[in-house]
């Protein structure tokens, strides 16, 4: 027969292996594989997977973006395009506690400026920055739906309303305490 036997089936989509994969990337790869297992190996899984990486690692690094892209069959540019579109995916300055102060009209009228000033003073960083110890990052956010109880802010997923300078101190102390307890729990 004038036919050649096609070589063993090779997956056209199987990712290249990184020549040298450092330990962190290797573990990230395993984690992503696991997440894709849960959310499915398709495009719809992209955002849930990215959200999960975000919440675990504070930000999605270049390896993760490319690896997720490859696994889900989209280009790396596309993953970057998606991440940069969404406020809660794009920030790359997340600390352990991400503080997002609402800047939209009702909170603005409830004197968000005072709270902003207080936060900056207490944390020693400006908006868009993270404290040197990596504990807190400070960001603006658009309306968080607490317009009747402004000024309002989010700390990670938790919402705080009627925020006053006094309350800020409590919030920050609470965060530190939570962190210490978690650390103890781990060790």
């Amino acid at each position: 027969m004038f036919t050649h036997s096609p070589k063993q089936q090779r997956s056209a989509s199987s990712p290249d292996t990184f020549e040298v994969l450092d330990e962190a990337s290797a573990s990230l790869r395993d984690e992503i594989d696991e997440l894709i297992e849960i959310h499915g190996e398709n495009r719809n899984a992209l955002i849930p997977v990215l959200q999960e990486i975000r919440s675990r690692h504070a930000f999605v690094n270049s390896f993760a973006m490319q690896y997720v892209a490859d696994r889900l069959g989209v280009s790396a540019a596309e993953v970057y395009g998606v991440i940069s579109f969404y406020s809660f995916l794009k920030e790359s300055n997340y600390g352990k506690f991400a503080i997002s102060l609402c800047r939209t009209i009702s909170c603005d009228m409830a004197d968000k400026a005072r709270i902003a000033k207080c936060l900056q003073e207490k944390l020693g960083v400006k908006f868009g920055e993270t404290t040197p110890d990596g504990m807190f990052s400070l960001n603006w956010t658009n309306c968080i739906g607490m317009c009747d109880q402004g000024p309002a802010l989010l700390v990670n997923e938790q919402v705080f309303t009627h925020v006053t300078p006094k309350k800020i101190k409590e919030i920050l102390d609470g965060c530190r305490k939570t962190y210490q307890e978690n650390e103890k729990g781990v060790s």
Partner: protein
Amino acid sequence: MTIRNTITFASIPTDKGLKAALEKEPKSVINDVIESGLRGCGGAGFPTGIKWKFAAKAEGAQKTVICNADEGEPGTFKDRVILAEWPDLVFEGMTIAAYAIGASSGIVYLRAEYAYMRKMLEECLEKRRQAGMLGAKIAGKEDFSFDIHIHMGSGAYVCGEESALIESLEGKRGEPRNRPPFPVEIGYENAPTIVNNVESLAWVSAIFANGSKWFKGAGTKESPGYKLMSISGDVKLPGVYEFPFGTTLSTILEAAGGEDAKAVAVGGASGTLVPPNNFACKICFEDVPTGGSIIVFGKNRNLLDVAENFQEFFADESCGQCTICRLGNVKLLEGIRLMKQGQCTDQHLEDLCSLGASMQIASKCGLGQTSPNVFLSVVKHFRDEIPRHPVAENDDQKTEKAKSSNLFQSVVQLFRTDADTAKNNSGTNKKGVSA
């Protein structure tokens, strides 16, 4: 306390509506919704029953019911309250919708800002599954299975637009699609899809519990029934209120304690700014429509500050796919800043108003079409708020300066990233955070 007056939902027994609906044929369920006159509560006001009818008619195996819980309109928080207080009604509404159009899966697109509610909602869903009101053979109905899962948003106002929401669910940038085709024909994963607001779905449950005649009996001819309003700003009693459609703005202000307002933004950042001489207007689709946001501005508020805040919001939240919205909002924002400095010439103001009118007709989606509303309202109703400066001889020079790319740069700079915004706000820009 957020809830300020008697809300119908509080009196609706769980699953009463759903059980009533499941006793009917899907067709007559749709007819009842059409009959009730319920219109979408997200803001656009498309008749809910008609939407269902289209989706029921459309061919497609995997129809989906989506609950739009991406409540992003500034000044709107009634969906948050509904989800927190009466989640069952929302899930019931979704189940009724699924039964009506023949869908087997449902998705709640919950905005990232409401992530703290997720656990509670999941628990509620689980409870419903155990009670047999969700999952396979709902309420013992052999041929009706439907389940709901929660998908978290990631922070994008435009995803409240139904086709952008679907794009987002499909793992893409939340950019509104071209219509037609509409989601009811080609939606999530190219299958017929209905996207309904949280409140609309809750009203569906109430309508089946109390009857469509009850709902139609309230409100106005074109806007039957009741509406939840989120009231914030300079009022004594901010919070969520329920009013029948057609209630006058002054009645609402009286209830909330904001009678002496200078202006009221009805419909949030994308709504209109109503001046006191029009407080007698009625809140309904025939007169002044709203998705539920009422923001009250007291006597001492500078409306240019308000317009600036809104325009900053749109310049940031525009998905950016169409030119006129992406750049138009930046130009309006620049214009407002010029006005605040008394440096916007009449000619330039006229150009901007004309641009705003173009944005209203040429933008691809509702975001762009409504984004110049507040700007145009300020110019129309509150022209006195715009500082007048001597602009006689060096008018042209100033305009040139105003138009120069430097200014564009400064605007762009201000928006580069949050980090830069902060830098600018605290440093070079006079307004900003610290003011």
